[in-house]
């Protein structure tokens, strides 16, 4: 394949795979899976873009939480939370969703696009109905995170190689399996975040159970959920007078 220089490259009339960068690593999300709708550099005209009323309200409510231009703020501040709303509504940051958000926020779709492609949790390609993020960072790796990710891939048929590099969909396209950096729950190692809830410590066999539960729509491993866990250690509070005799909160 001959490399196409970026200046000759118009994503609208070529297959995403045609694009070969001149030697730089390219974020897959930027080159595959999607093409912008309309002109990405024009702020969408509210007269032309149809935005569902409830979505418009939701977005406006978020924009209102940030300081406005009179307070040196900017509606752009709402970009990440608004993209969350789009993703929750459409399953991922769809080009149509981005145009709708851009229209309400009065920013360019290209701007929101650039933000969405920066953050790991905002998906710029379809991500299935369920998301399983398996931590493979230091503490989880020590305690079997790689093997846990193997098990999820075996069970769902997701491609292991791709799962380790940004995520892969299960064979039926319903579950996204992705290796992930430290999720801030190393005490649960090895752990996974399933539809944004944390579970651990997991055995390899739990992968099968979790996938079955997701497919049947039942509650996922309630006994291993983080929110059901107590404080670690359980060491008795000290009888230290500085603590018990203090003023202020926690007394």
């Amino acid at each position, binding site marked *: 394949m001959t490399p196409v220089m970026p200046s000759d490259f118009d994503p609208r009339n070529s297959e995403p795979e045609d694009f070969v960068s001149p030697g730089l*690593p390219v974020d897959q999300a930027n080159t595959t899976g999607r093409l912008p709708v309309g002109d990405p550099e024009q702020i969408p005209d509210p007269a032309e873009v149809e935005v569902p009323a409830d979505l418009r309200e939701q977005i406006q409510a978020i924009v209102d939480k940030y300081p406005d231009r009179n307070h040196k703020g900017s509606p752009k501040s709402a970009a990440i939370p608004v993209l*969350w709303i789009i993703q929750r509504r459409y399953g991922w940051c769809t080009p149509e969703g981005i145009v709708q958000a851009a229209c309400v926020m009065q920013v360019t779709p290209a701007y929101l696009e650039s933000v969405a492609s920066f953050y790991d949790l905002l998906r710029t390609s379809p991500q299935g109905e369920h998301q399983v993020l398996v931590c493979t960072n*230091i503490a989880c790796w020590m*305690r079997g995170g790689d093997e846990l990710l193997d098990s999820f891939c075996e069970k769902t048929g997701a491609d292991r190689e791709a799962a380790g590099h940004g995520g892969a969909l299960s064979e039926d396209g319903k579950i996204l399996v992705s290796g992930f950096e430290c999720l801030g729950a190393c005490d*649960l190692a090895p752990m996974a975040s399933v539809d944004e809830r944390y579970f651990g410590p997991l*055995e390899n066999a739990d992968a099968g159970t979790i996938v079955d539960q997701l497919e049947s729509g039942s509650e996922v491993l309630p006994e291993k959920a983080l929110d059901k866990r107590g404080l*670690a250690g*359980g060491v008795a509070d*000290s009888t230290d007078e500085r603590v018990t005799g203090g003023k202020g909160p926690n007394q």
Partner: protein
Amino acid sequence: MSIVETRVLLRHAEDPKMATLAGYESYGGYEVLKKALKEIEPEWIVNELEESGLRGRGGAGFSMGKKVSFLPHTDEAKYLCCNADESEPGAFKDRELMQRNPHQLIEGMIISSFAADIEHAFIFIRGEYDDQADILDRAVDEAYEAGYLGKNILGSGFALELTVHRGAGAYICGEETALLDALEGKRGNPRLKPPFPAVQGLYGGPTLINNVETLSNVSHIVANGADWFKSFGTEQSPGTKVVSVSGCVKRPGNYEVELGVSLRDLIYGLAGGPLDGREITAFYPGGSSSPVLTPAEMDLPYSFEAMAEAGSMLGSGSIIVADDSVSIPRMALRTAKFYRHESCGKCTPCREGTNWTEKMLQRVCSGEATPMDLDIISSVQDNIMGHCLCVLGDAMAMPVSSMVNKFRDSFEQTIAEEAAKAWSFGGLEAADGPVGDPAGRTSPGVPSGPPTGPSKSPGRDVQDGDEPGPGGVSPETLRRERLAGRSIPSGGGS
């Protein structure tokens, strides 16, 4: 050895009521705020915070009171950003603090804002902490309803807005200036400093940025005074600290202790020490960005100054323990891979340095490197340190170079063993004498013999091969054995 926790911030945290306004108030919550708004001068609070010696709990350990005092006394809009991005591998204390006691943080933020005349506060929470963000959202709503937030708080005339802002998965947003960009709705790229955020931060206004744990301490200090606070901990590291201990220990979890307790008390006493039959070989004392220490340093006090003296740092206060089943070169590779992934790419030493360090470590772990490459790895780290816009580059360079320096034997051994394996798997069974690697270099001292394990499929992030170690058993075999029979303690239970 019986060490107990000194729970100030996590006191009564096991009570689920604590996460609600009514529960928090039943334990004396918001009393200090009421008192402060009525009878205390903002200057007194700033002074007390400075006097207390409270050091930032997010990584740098800078005096919180000083930071507040740097904010200019002008009329322009000022901001407070609570850093709840907590994405450093090994750190999970802020998660616990927000989940169990969100109002302690909110009260601390209101008092800090009152002291510094701030009009809008934000909590920047990492997007993965969905449950915790929901808890904060609810707590903030409750605080608005109770009149602790909003206009004219408790009739004092002081007004404060508080917004919970969810990130979307990028470690770099924990860096304070990248956090500001993310809050302004941009890609999270660090800014050049100076100007420091205290002068020119969010929307160009003076901005105070502090970690969740730092801010959670504020109401306690204002209620009890600086001297009370200083009665905990050491002279240069006053107070208590919530320490996250994880990795190869029996009871991983968060433990709140006075700063200055010994590492042994933390790792053995509280976290239960290594798993049965294992030995600790190394540990990160302050999250994955800190240079590793060895068991020889186990009796040092856990304080900012002692960790710095030992050539490492206390950082966010997260200890990750490795035992003899963990291959140090592969741990270095994991570390480098993380920083390569999270580098924002803005400066060359960091973008290229993290990338090449990962590649070189990969060569080490697949036996393609030579011992000379270890010197190159070290020199690359030296060229990263101090040459980047933010300290993410240094955050990789420090632990990686500490591992190469302290565990050089282990790196050389891995190279030799992997080379031998690659050789024998190529069908070229090693004959007597030194074994050459595929590139024709010779690596002396390689045990010859039949391969000890199956090779992993190529192209995985990390080739977790299986090499014989000193006693004939490789760390990787040990790790797998341990995992096979793994019994992981529940670490608490409900």
